[in-house]
């Protein structure tokens, strides 16, 4: 499948490629059995087998086949299909995944990255309470072929929050996510974006005793794009050409403003950390002309 030329084409391609049906899934690709919990990628195909018995196979142009075990939990199926499998499909279709949640402001995307538990979802939920539109939760997909602009695709996942984050942000909690998690779906208070938009800012959430927001400079900008999240491993498997991979990461490192937001993980300081993120967005230089 050829990479899409425009971000709108990329969005449409992802919608086509993530259609799914039930069926049988091979035990592995290229004659090698997949280890439960591990994914395989070969020749435009992506396979995931889960310990619970779910199996997922993506084939370019044919979408996803889901092998459903007896008594399989629909919520677990959705988490895998919209998580790891979706990322694999995105990578095979030329998109770059970033482990980040994001909001939209003034037609631009402001993303917040960090490891699991860093507070990405909680922060964007709180920013939603301040009137910013949710762009994505947990995984940000970037479309940036050649010399083209750095565009982000709107998220496909519903916002998920821990119970205490629902309370802390004032979000409206919805159904429990289930599948062994202690999270709850939450409404995006200011709505959710539906169109690709330029990605202009990537803020890394860090923990520290004193709150500060400061720029990320130099090679650190590059290194932070190659973190150890599973999405990067999938991306590198889909992009075996190291030279092309380097060029793409260099383009992102040079084209996106990167910042560190260091703040204490402390309920009493939470509002201040949301203020700091909001100030970063509202004072962002070079806002798009109306």
């Amino acid at each position, binding site marked *: 499948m050829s990479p899409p030329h425009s971000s709108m084409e990329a969005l449409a391609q992802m919608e086509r490629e993530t259609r799914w049906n039930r069926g049988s899934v091979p035990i592995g690709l290229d004659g090698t059995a997949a280890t439960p919990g591990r994914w395989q990628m070969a020749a435009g195909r992506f396979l995931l087998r889960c310990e619970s018995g779910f199996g997922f196979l993506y084939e370019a142009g044919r979408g996803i086949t889901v092998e459903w075990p007896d008594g399989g939990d629909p919520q677990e199926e959705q988490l895998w299909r919209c998580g790891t499998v979706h990322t694999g499909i995105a990578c095979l279709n030329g998109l770059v995944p970033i482990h980040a949640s994001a909001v939209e402001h003034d037609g631009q995307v402001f993303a917040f990255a960090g490891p699991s538990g860093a507070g990405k979802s909680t922060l964007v939920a709180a920013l939603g309470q301040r009137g910013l539109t949710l762009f994505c939760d947990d995984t940000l997909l970037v479309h940036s072929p050649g010399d083209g602009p750095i565009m982000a695709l709107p998220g496909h996942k519903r916002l998920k929050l821990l119970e205490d984050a629902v309370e802390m942000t004032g979000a409206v909690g919805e159904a429990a996510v289930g599948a062994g998690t202690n999270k709850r779906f939450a409404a995006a208070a200011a709505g959710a974006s539906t169109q690709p938009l330029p990605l202009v800012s990537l803020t890394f959430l860090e923990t520290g005793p004193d709150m500060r927001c400061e720029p990320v400079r130099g*090679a650190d900008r*590059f290194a932070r794009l190659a973190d150890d999240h599973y999405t990067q491993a999938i991306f590198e498997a889909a992009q075996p050409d190291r030279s092309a991979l380097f060029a793409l990461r260099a383009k992102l490192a040079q084209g996106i403003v990167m910042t560190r937001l260091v703040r204490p993980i402390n309920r009493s300081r939470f509002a201040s950390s949301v203020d700091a993120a909001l100030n970063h967005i509202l004072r962002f230089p070079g806002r798009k002309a109306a």
Partner: protein
Amino acid sequence: MSSVLVKNSAAFSETTIDGEVVVMSLDTGTFYSLTGSAAATWALIDGTRDYTALLDDLAAHFKTSPSLIGADTDAFIKSLVEAGLIAGG
């Protein structure tokens, strides 16, 4: 080290971000961040200088004596050769 120092341009990719040079070995995927004198040395390896000429130009750039920077420069050049990023030396 008397031969002209030449970068193995097929062996790496590089970019410059905020004045820092980022080099990645295409063979191993290892990243190198070059700043200050390392970045200056890397820039002087342009296929026109042998080690002695490079050391002279580097010393002139930093307004110092070649003898004061020789050991560090020698070690850096050797590390670049070992990483397969340059030939010569």
